[in-house]
C-alpha cells in the first residue's frame, strides 16, 4: 500500500537470534529478576524487570535465621517468576542464574532455605561469596568504567551499599587496586540500631556514627586523601539519582554533584518510613534502606573529598548477565584487573617481580603448548598465571619452606574477582612449585575433589618446569620451542650458552611433570631437528 514506508533495511543476516536468560538476585530486601536477551555478539537487552519485597534481611540480621513465613513468601514470588520465565520459554537450568547474597549467606538455616526453594520451584540458588560479589559489581559497571574517560584516570571508588554489606572497589588509573566487602548494610543498620522511641533525627545520628566506623576502616585500607569520583551502585542510589536529576532516564548513568546528593540524603534521612512510602511511592522495604544507604554514600564521598557521584543504571543483575554473556571465560579487561590486583599483592610481600613475571610468562606458554594434554578450560590460564606470579611470596616470611608460606599468604589474601575456591587452587599450585608432590593428606589438597586435584597437579607440574627455566632469576630464557616424541617432551631454548643450572633444577622438579603428563621433560639448546615429527 502506498501509504506505508518501505520496510527497514534488514540487517545482513543475523548469525543467530538472541537467546533469552533469566537472572535472579535474592537480596536482603527484595527478590528481583531480569529477563534479558543476549545476542551472539554479547549484546544484552533487558526485556523484563521484576521486583518483590521480602524480609530476608530483616530475619537474618535480627534473628540469625530466615523465618518459615519468609521462606514461603520467597517460594510464592519465585513461582510467579517461574511463570514469567515460562512465557519466554526460559526453562532450562543453563538459562537461569539465581544468586543470593549476605541475608541468605549468613542465615543459620540457609541450606533448608535453598532446599525448600529448589523443591518448590526447581530454581537452584547459588550463594555467592563476598569476593564474587565485588567481581559482579565490577562486571556491572565495567561498561561505564571503560567508556567514561573521567573514570580511567586517578582514584575512583566503586561502592555498592547493599542491605547487608557494602562492596568497595578502589580503582587507580582504571585498575582495581583494592577490593573488599564491609559489614555495613543499609538494612543491617536499621535492624540492629533501631530502637523504640528514638526520634528520626536520633536515628540519623546513630546511622552516621555507625557509618563513620566503617568509613574509618575504609580509610585505613585505602590510604588516600582524595578520590575523584564515587560510583554509587544500588537501587537506593538509582532512586536518589532519578529524584535529583529528572532527565537521567535516557542514559546509562548520571553524574550528580556530591553536594546535591548529600543534600538529598539529609532530606530523606530523617523522614519516617510512612512519609517515604506515601510521598515517594516506595514499598516499605525500599523505604527502610533508603535513608541509611544514601547517608553512607554521602559520608564516603565526604571522607574522600569527592566532588561528583556517578550513578549507573546497572545493578548486580547486569553483572550476572554480563557473566552469562561472556560465558565461563573471563574478559581481557577482567583478566587485566585480576593481574593488577595480584601484582599489588606481590608487592606487599616484596617479591621478585621480574622473576615472578618471567615464570608466569613461561607457564602460560607451556600451558598453551600442552593444551592437547591437559585439556583444561581457558579460565585456568589465569589461575596458573597468578600462581606463577606469586609462587615465591612466602620468601618474605622465611626462606625455609617458603612454598608453604606462599600457600598460606595467598590463602589469607583477597584477590579482586577470585573466589575462595579459586584462591585455594592458586595457593596449592604455588605450594607445589617445589619439594613434596601433592599428597592426599596435605592440608587444603585433602578438601579438593578429584577434578580439582588433577587441576592442581597439572598446573603445578607446568609451574615447576617454568620455574626451573628461570632458575638463576636472570630472565635469560626468551624464546622456546618444543618437540614431542612418545614419552618425551623436549623444550628447546634459544639464545643461551648453556642450560646446566636449569637442567639440574629440572631434574629436581620435573618428576611431577613426568607423572602427570606421562612424558619426560628435557631441555635442549638450539632449534629442534628438522623432520622430527615425520618419524613418528
Amino acid at each position, binding site marked *: *500500500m*502506498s*501509504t*506505508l*514506508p518501505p*520496510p*527497514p533495511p534488514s*540487517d545482513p543476516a*543475523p548469525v543467530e*537470534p*538472541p537467546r*533469552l536468560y533469566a537472572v535472579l538476585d535474592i537480596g536482603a530486601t*527484595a527478590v528481583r529478576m531480569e529477563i534479558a*536477551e543476549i*545476542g551472539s555478539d554479547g549484546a544484552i*537487552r*533487558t*526485556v*523484563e*524487570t*521484576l*521486583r*518483590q*519485597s521480602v524480609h530476608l534481611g530483616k530475619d537474618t540480621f535480627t534473628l540469625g535465621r530466615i523465618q518459615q513465613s519468609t521462606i514461603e513468601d520467597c517460594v510464592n514470588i519465585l513461582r*510467579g*517468576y517461574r*511463570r*514469567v520465565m*515460562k*512465557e*519466554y*520459554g526460559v526453562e532450562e537450568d543453563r538459562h537461569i542464574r539465581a544468586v543470593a547474597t549476605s541475608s541468605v549467606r549468613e542465615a543459620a538455616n540457609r541450606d533448608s532455605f535453598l532446599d525448600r526453594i529448589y523443591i518448590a520451584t526447581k530454581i537452584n540458588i547459588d550463594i555467592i561469596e563476598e569476593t564474587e560479589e565485588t567481581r559482579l559489581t565490577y562486571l556491572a559497571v565495567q561498561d561505564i568504567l571503560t567508556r567514561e574517560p573521567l573514570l580511567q584516570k586517578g582514584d575512583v571508588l566503586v561502592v555498592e551499599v547493599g542491605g547487608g554489606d557494602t562492596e568497595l572497589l578502589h580503582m587507580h588509573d582504571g585498575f582495581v587496586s583494592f577490593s573488599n566487602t564491609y559489614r555495613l548494610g543499609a538494612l543491617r543498620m536499621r535492624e540492629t540500631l533501631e530502637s523504640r522511641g528514638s526520634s528520626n533525627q536520633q536515628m540519623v545520628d546513630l546511622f552516621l556514627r555507625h557509618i563513620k566506623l566503617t568509613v574509618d576502616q575504609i580509610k585505613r585500607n585505602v590510604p588516600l586523601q582524595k578520590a575523584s569520583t564515587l560510583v554509587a551502585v544500588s537501587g537506593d542510589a538509582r532512586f536518589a539519582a*532519578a529524584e535529583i536529576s529528572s532527565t537521567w*532516564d535516557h542514559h546509562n548513568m548520571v553524574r550528580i554533584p556530591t553536594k546535591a546528593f548529600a543534600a538529598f540524603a539529609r532530606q530523606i534521612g530523617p523522614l519516617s518510613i510512612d512519609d517515604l512510602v506515601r510521598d515517594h*511511592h516506595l*514499598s516499605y522495604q525500599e523505604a527502610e534502606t533508603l535513608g541509611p544507604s544514601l547517608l553512607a554514600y554521602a559520608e564516603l564521598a565526604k571522607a574522600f573529598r569527592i566532588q561528583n557521584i556517578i550513578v549507573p543504571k546497572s545493578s548486580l543483575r547486569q553483572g550476572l548477565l554480563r557473566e552469562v554473556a561472556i560465558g565461563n571465560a573471563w574478559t581481557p579487561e577482567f583478566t587485566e584487573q585480576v593481574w593488577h590486583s595480584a601484582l599489588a599483592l606481590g608487592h606487599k610481600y616484596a617479591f621478585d617481580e621480574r622473576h615472578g613475571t618471567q615464570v608466569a610468562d613461561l607457564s602460560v606458554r607451556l600451558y598453551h603448548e600442552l593444551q592437547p594434554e591437559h585439556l583444561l578450560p581457558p579460565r585456568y590460564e589465569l589461575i596458573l598465571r597468578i600462581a606463577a606470579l606469586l609462587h615465591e611470596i612466602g620468601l618474605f616470611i622465611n626462606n625455609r619452606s617458603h612454598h608453604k608460606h606462599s600457600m598460606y599468604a595467598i590463602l589469607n589474601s583477597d584477590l579482586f574477582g577470585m573466589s575462595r575456591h579459586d584462591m585455594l587452587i592458586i595457593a596449592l599450585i604455588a605450594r607445589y612449585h617445589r619439594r613434596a608432590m601433592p599428597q592426599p593428606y596435605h592440608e587444603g589438597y585433602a578438601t579438593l575433589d578429584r577434578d580439582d586435584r588433577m587441576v592442581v597437579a597439572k598446573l603445578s607440574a607446568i609451574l615447576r618446569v617454568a620455574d626451573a627455566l628461570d632458575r638463576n632469576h636472570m630472565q635469560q630464557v626468551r624464546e622456546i620451542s618444543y618437540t614431542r616424541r612418545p614419552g618425551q617432551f623436549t623444550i628447546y631454548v634459544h639464545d643461551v650458552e648453556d642450560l646446566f643450572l636449569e637442567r639440574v633444577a629440572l631434574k629436581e622438579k620435573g618428576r611431577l611433570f613426568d607423572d602427570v603428563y606421562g612424558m619426560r621433560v628435557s631441555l635442549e639448546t638450539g632449534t629442534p631437528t628438522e623432520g622430527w615429527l615425520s618419524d613418528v
Partner: protein
Amino acid sequence: MSKSKTPPVYNNRDLSWVDFNRRVLEEALDPSLPPLERLKFLAITASNFDEFFMVRVGALEFLLDQGRNEPDLSGLTVHDQLLAISSRAHEMVDTLYTCFLNQVKPALRDAGIRRLYTNDLTPQVYDYLEQVFDHDLYPILSPIALHPDEPFPSIPGLAINLLVRLKPANDAKPSRKTPFRYAVVPIPRKLGRFITVPIDEGHNYCLTEDVVAEFVERLFPGEPIAETVPFRITRNADMSVREDAAGDLLHRMKEVLDARKQSDCVRLEIAATAGKTSAEKLTSLLQVRPDAIYPISGPIDLSAYFGLARMTGLDHLRDKPWPPQQSPDVPANTSLFDIISRKDLLLHHPYESFDPVVRLVEEAADDPNVLAIKQILYRTSENSPIIAALARAANREKHVTAIVELKARFDEARNIGWAKELERSGVQVIYGIKGLKTHAKICVIVRREGGGIRRYVHFGTGNYNENTARLYTDISYLTCNDDYGADATAFFNMITGFSQPIRFRKLEAAPIGLKDRLLELIESERMRKREGQDARIIARLNSLVHPDIINALYRASQAGVKIHLNIRGICCLRPGVPGLSENIEVVSIVDRFLEHSRILYFHQGGEPQVFISSADWMPRNLERRVELLIPVDDDACRNRLIHILETIFRDTLKARRQKPDGSYERIKPSRNAPPLRSQEAFYQAAREAHQLAQRNDKAVFVPERPSLVT
C-alpha cells in the same frame, strides 16, 4: 494579578451530571432530527437517569441515613443536593414525556408505528392478545399479596409491576373491617416490553403491562378488580464490594448482585392515572419520600424504546448512518504485525473501524511466534471475538493472561460468565486488584522474531467491545516501540502481582503516579507562563471532578495559561470567572456518537506533549482505579491527535459552552468560520481517506495472497 484573585467556586458534581443529561434530552427536542433518532435520545436520557438514581442518588440517600449532611465543595449539603436533583429531575421528566407524547409519538404514528390500547381493539386483535396472555403470560405471572403489617415484598428494581387493588369478594362494600386488598404483579423481564400485534399495516404494538392489566382478573378469581396501576421502583445500588471481607472475590460479587435486589427504594415511578388510594398505599408501604415520587404520564421506562429505535427496516426514520471506515494505514491483506512494525498506528473510532484491534488479537492467537498475550477486559460484548481469540490462543499453548474486571458496574453478571469461560480454556484469569478497579485499556502481545523479543502494544481510551466501538468516540494507539513494550509488561507484572511497581519509561499509572504527573504538567505550564513563554493546555475528557486538578487549573489560569477543556459530562470547574478562571473555556459536545476519548495536550514551550488516557479527572479514577496515561511521541500520531483536539473546539453545531454561572448555552457560529459539526467532519475525513486509499490501491496491481486471518 494576585490581588484580583477570586476564591474558587465549583459546580456540584451531581447537578452537573443532571445538566449533562439535560443536554442529551435537548438533542431529543431537536425537531430537525428524524423521529427514531429523537426516540433514541429520549431512551438514553431515561436510561441515564436509571443508573444515576441507583448509584448517585442512592449514595446521597445513604449518606443522609448515616447522618452525614456536610456541604460539598460547591457548598450544598446532601439534603440540598437531593432536593435540587429532585426538582430538576421532575422538570426533566415532564419535558421528556411532553416531547414523547406530543411530538415523537405522533410522528411515529404518522410513520405507521402505533401503540394500541386494549380498549380500542378489533375483536380479532383482542382474541390474539388473549391467546398471548393465556399461553405466554399467565403461566409465569406470580402475584404477591400485600399485607399491611409485613414489609414490602422483594420485587426487582427497574422492572415494571402492576399494583392491583381488589374489592372484597361477593360484592361486599369495602369498609374498615373488610378493606381493599392489594397485590403486586411483577411483569417478568424476559417477556419483553412490547407485544407486536399482527396487523397488515405498519408496526403495531401493545405494552405488556397493558395486556396483563386487561386480563388480570384471571389471577384473582372471585375478587373484582378496582384498579391496576403500573409502577416501577429504583433501588439504592451503591453496594461497593466489601473487599476486606472473607471469601474470594467472585463469591462476593454474587453477594452484591443478590443485595442489589433488596435495597432501599430511591425513586418510585407511578402511572399518573393512579387513584389517590392506590398511590398512597404504595408510597406508605415503600416508605418513599414525597420528592422521590415521579408520576408518569406515558409508558414507564422509556429506555425500553431503545429496541424500537433500533428496529430494522425503518431507516427512513433515522439519520443516514456513518459506518466505520477502514483506516488507510491498515491494508486488508497485510498482517498487523507487519504494519505496526513499520510505523505506529493511531485509530480514531468510531469513524475508523475497530476491526484492526480485534484482528491483532486474532492474528496473535494464530501466530506460531507469539509467546504471550496479556489483556485487560473491563466491559466487553457478549460473544466477543476478542474473548474467543484469547481462548483459542490459550488452547494453542500460548500464555494468555486476562485481567477481568468484575467490578465493572452493572456488567458483573456478564463478566463472571466469560471469566469462567476463559478459565476453562486455560487462560490465566485475574480478577483485578484488591480495592481497585482495573480501568486501563491495554493489550500486549509478546512475539519472538528474528531480532529477538518484540512486544506489540495496544493502548485504548475505550473498552475492548466492538459494539460500543461503533458508538463511542475513542482512540487506539498501536506500537511496538520497546519502551512502551517494556512498560506494558511491567504494568502487567504489577497488576498480576508478580512484581511491585517499577519506574516506567514512558507511562504513568494510577493510583501510583498519574495524578502527580498531571499536576506536574499543569504546574509546568504555569511556570512557563510566568517565565514569559507561551503556555496552553487542551484536554478532552468525560468528567472533571478532582478538586486538586481543578485548583491547579485555576492557578494556571490565574497565571495566564490558556486552557481549553472539552468535557462531555460532569465538570465541577467553573470557567470564565473573573480573577479565577477567565482563561479557561469549557465546551461539551453531545451528538450522535458518545464522546468518550481522553486526549491531553500540554504546550511545553512549543514542544507539545500529547497523551491519551483511560482516566477521567475524578477522584475515583485517579485514586481508586488502575488507569494509564500514555504519551504519544510518534510525530504523525501526535499531530493527528492535535488535529482532533483542534477540530472539536471548532464545533459550532453540537457544542455547548459553560457560562460563568455554570449553565450551558449553545455556541453561536462565528461569522468568520463556516458552521462545523465535528463528528460529521471526522466521518467525512475518514471516508475520504478510505476512498483515496482504495483508489491508490487499484492503481497498483497486488498479487493475491492468502490472508493471515482465517
